[in-house]
């Protein structure tokens, strides 16, 4: 059954990428001076870096057919922990590592509750998100952490290497690493198998619980890393600073699902999804479109992409 590579087929498979390119062209034509410049493109990579990193985690959890709604709260917590440690004079690398390790454990608890008690991940992580929000508030007293943050803490978030922002480099590295992990390692294969058919994976001897727990733990770690990087970029950590990334990260991951033919969560798809969201935000800001219009447009584009994908797969009724 060779499939004909007709125009409609191509549109279905790569429609989202075409749409992304189209958006870039439209902005470039409208504001060639401000949008399509090297400076702005580099700027965009920095702007999307945090979203990409947190969305990579969401993609891992989605690949085992679960959800982690606590990524936003985890990012907030991660940022606050990192910033507080920096203020307290901890070694800078520890300020980045410690939140990641702590949130790895929290993510593992998320997974453990889901797999051990067969609770919906939706509910478990929603509750966890609330708990973490409360904890972060108590931890900070509700105030932004910004006083006495050492300069060295903000290097990673603000400096560039050979003209490339360090944040962008980290984003690219992580994307490549997780692409490799999902595509070429036994670990990634098992995650996709579990997402495809949990019962069959279990019968095939895959330790479903263990791998789901790991997916949750890695997702939480990436969220925490996102939070610290955000604090490093801003030079401050707000107790709800990462919350806004939660919906965005799933928007990127869902957009990413539509990018390649398989219709499954995939790393480069998520990258493209985040990039489209980032380009939209950047371009619309340059065009001085009000924020509410940006939200309207972004939402419509996500729905459109998902619907087109469903029609393409013949799932629509």
């Amino acid at each position: 059954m060779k499939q004909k590579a007709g125009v409609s087929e191509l549109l279905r498979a790569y429609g989202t990428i075409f749409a992304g390119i189209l958006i870039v062209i439209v902005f470039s034509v409208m504001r060639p001076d401000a949008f399509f410049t090297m400076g702005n493109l580099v700027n965009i990579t920095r702007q999307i870096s945090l979203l990409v990193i947190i969305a990579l985690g969401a993609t891992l959890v989605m690949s085992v057919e679960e959800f982690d709604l606590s990524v936003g709260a985890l990012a907030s917590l991660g940022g606050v922990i990192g910033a507080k440690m920096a203020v307290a004079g901890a070694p800078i690398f520890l300020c980045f590592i410690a939140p990641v390790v702590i949130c790895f454990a929290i993510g593992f608890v998320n997974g453990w509750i889901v797999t051990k008690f067969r609770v919906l991940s939706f509910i478990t992580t929603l509750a966890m998100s609330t708990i973490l929000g409360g904890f972060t508030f108590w931890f900070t007293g509700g105030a932004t952490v910004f006083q006495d943050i050492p300069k060295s803490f903000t290097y990673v978030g603000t400096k560039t290497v050979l003209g490339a922002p360090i944040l962008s480099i980290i984003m690219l590295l992580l994307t490549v690493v997780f692409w490799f992990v999902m595509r070429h390692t036994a670990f990634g294969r098992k995650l996709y198998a579990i997402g495809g058919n949990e019962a069959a994976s279990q019968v095939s001897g895959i330790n479903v619980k263990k791998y789901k727990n790991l997916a949750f733990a890695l997702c939480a770690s990436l969220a925490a890393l996102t939070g610290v990087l955000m604090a490093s970029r801003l030079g401050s950590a707000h107790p709800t600073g990462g919350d806004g990334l939660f919906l965005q990260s799933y928007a990127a991951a869902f957009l990413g699902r539509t990018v390649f033919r398989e219709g499954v969560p995939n790393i480069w798809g998520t990258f493209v999804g985040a990039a489209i969201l980032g380009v939209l935000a950047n371009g619309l800001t340059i065009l001085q479109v009000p924020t509410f219009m940006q939200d309207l447009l972004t939402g419509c584009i996500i729905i459109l992409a998902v619907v087109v994908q469903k029609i393409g797969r013949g799932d629509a009724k």
Partner: protein
Amino acid sequence: MLLQTKKLCKQFGGMYALKDIDFEIAEGEIHGLVGENGAGKSTLIKILTGVYSLDSGEVWWNGSPVRIENPRQSRDIGINVIHQDRNLIPAFSGVENVYLGMDYEKKAGFAVDWAKMKARVEAVMRELKVEIDLSLPASALSPPQRTLLEIVRAMMTECRLLILDEPTASLTDKEAEMLFETIGKLKARGTAILYVTHRMDEIFRLTDRITVFKNGQSAGTVRTADVDKDAIISMMTDNWVSETLTVSRKYGEVLLDAEHIASRDGIVKDASLTVRAGEILGVFGLGGSGRTELLECIYGYRPAEKGSVTLCGRQIAHPSPGGSIKNGMVLICEDRRGKALVGSLSVKQNTVLSTIDSYARFGVVNERKELSDTREKIEALSIKTEGPNQTVLQLSGGNQQKVVFAKALMSRPKVLLCDEPTQAVDVKTRAEIHKLLRRLADAGSAVVFVSSDLKEVLEATDNVQVMAGGRTKERFVNDGLTAEQVLACCYAN
């Protein structure tokens, strides 16, 4: 006659599921319907209840022909069915469940009149002498209470024919008594009852007449008083006799020994089996005997309550799928799409699913080796596919099953648990699978072969272990064994 069918036929894909069925049931009659797995009992029920349409033939109701085109019509003329998988909503109360699909009583045209609804349900319950607390949700009721509640529901409307499909499958003897009492009341009211079961003692205790189905045809209707169990069993089967062994097989050491297995969900109650190297052990049981569940317990997929599993001489304390595979035992699941294959993945990824770790060095999969091994299996099992990267669901049923075998063989198992391995595969693949299993046994593996097709079990196995009601019964040497012998054991108390 209340209901008559004349020359009823139903085909699925060119095969007759029912052929020329003449069947009748009178008012106030309890009519037993028996037959082996796949004899056509369910198909008849589904035609009478409007789930399937008939291909040819007629259904007469109350002396005139009727067309039953959907379940609603069937209920409207007075036919109700109660399945073994009960149709109750767990969180709903008795009254709510009884009124499912019926219009609620209303006060002033819109407010639900709970009191009136409850009174109506209670009136029916009094008539049938059924006692259930209607305020409890269905999930809090015992299994027989749930069945009774369904009967009450059926009786709320004008029900003239009640079909009971294996109503006692999950009931204890005492619980079944409650049900029998109610059935007696219904009969006295003039309701006709079509009673479908594997349990012979119930058939002889309750029914007035018995109809026997065999391979989609009616083998006859008899008055219960005129026959005994052996007569019914001989009507059910063509009495195949397995071929006498021409070569006497030599078996090696015991590779799998499962003792007194009981599953936590209570479906398997006390089952033991032993297979030796070089042996194909058939496990036969009627629907609901716990065959599938026993294999899943041994394999470690279904939690076991009791019992011990010894694999290749080593006692396995806590069986788990991963451990079983490592120790040389694989399970070919009956539910191919649900439990055996990951439909969205490719032939290759399914083939290496349970052995993926052996392809990985520091976690990175050696894709070249993976591909060549898959190619080799595609060749060896002659799997028809575009290539290793084709999505497995695009393959035909027979070829999908071969992929399941390919996956199983990748771990070089010593013990193969095969649950309905030839289900929904074409005749050619079926023969290939039989040959493959024999080849594996000859090479020193032990094979457990579960099938609900008795003829196939007699064809393909060396010894036959019978299961009934979650327990293993007699074990036969398949040498001149007859279908009657096996069935008699299934139906023995």
